């Protein structure tokens, strides 16, 4: 098991938009110009199995953030953080690490396409 972990690398987590997604300049980690419509904080769960040897599928931010992209609005100042929440840690503890949930948090602003303003 140790050699498998050493060879494969464990606890892999990939955060990216899926290949072929038809989106241009709508998910920005930097500050975008535009009227600030909303601030959001969303979470998404993912799970490692068997002490990280079985890693989850790539995390797709679009699944969570798509509802904020209506009517030409865009996402600005996006920060992505991953951590074990209390519940995640409890599950990990009770299953001795066999099931290891992880919480991904997205936080940012929704800006409109029109009425640009200086930030």
């Amino acid at each position, binding site marked *: 098991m140790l050699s498998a972990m050493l060879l494969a690398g464990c*606890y892999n987590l990939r955060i*990216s938009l899926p290949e072929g997604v038809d989106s241009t*300049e*709508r*998910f920005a980690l*930097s500050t*975008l110009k535009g009227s600030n419509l909303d601030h959001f904080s969303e979470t998404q769960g993912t799970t490692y199995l068997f002490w990280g040897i079985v890693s989850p599928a790539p995390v797709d931010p679009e699944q969570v953030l798509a509802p904020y992209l209506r009517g030409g609005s865009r996402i600005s100042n996006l920060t*992505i953080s991953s951590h*074990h929440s209390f519940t995640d840690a409890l599950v990990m503890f009770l299953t001795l690490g066999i099931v290891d949930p992880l919480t991904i948090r997205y936080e940012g602003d929704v800006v409109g396409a029109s009425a640009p303003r200086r930030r």
Partner: protein
Amino acid sequence: MNHVSRLVCSVFVMMATGCYSLTHGVATSRNAVYLDDARGSVDRHFKEEDRALYMLFGTINVYQPRLDDKISQYLRKGVKVANLKIETACTPADVLIGIVPGLFGILFSSRTVRYEGDVMSTGKGGTGRD
């Protein structure tokens, strides 16, 4: 306090603080950074790697990679970053980093963080910021 109480307290602290946390954001860059595609031509593709360092099962963040620092070398006037991918992994090197101090009773661990994306020219000669 007996050993069982100490163990329960330690586990509770781990759970309460949230372990192996990692945050990616752009705080200081004047250039635009996108997870998706951007308008313009691709100047170059980049891959950068850094290592997050933790102690006590990830409850103490010793060092956190900063996306700003890793991509700053590519950013100049008129460019932006697009198609950014962020990958966190526990590589064989990270396993060894954890094992060696562990032999001396130091609970030290690390995670490798990789940033990958395209540097794109806006063609306007501006800052690249939208």
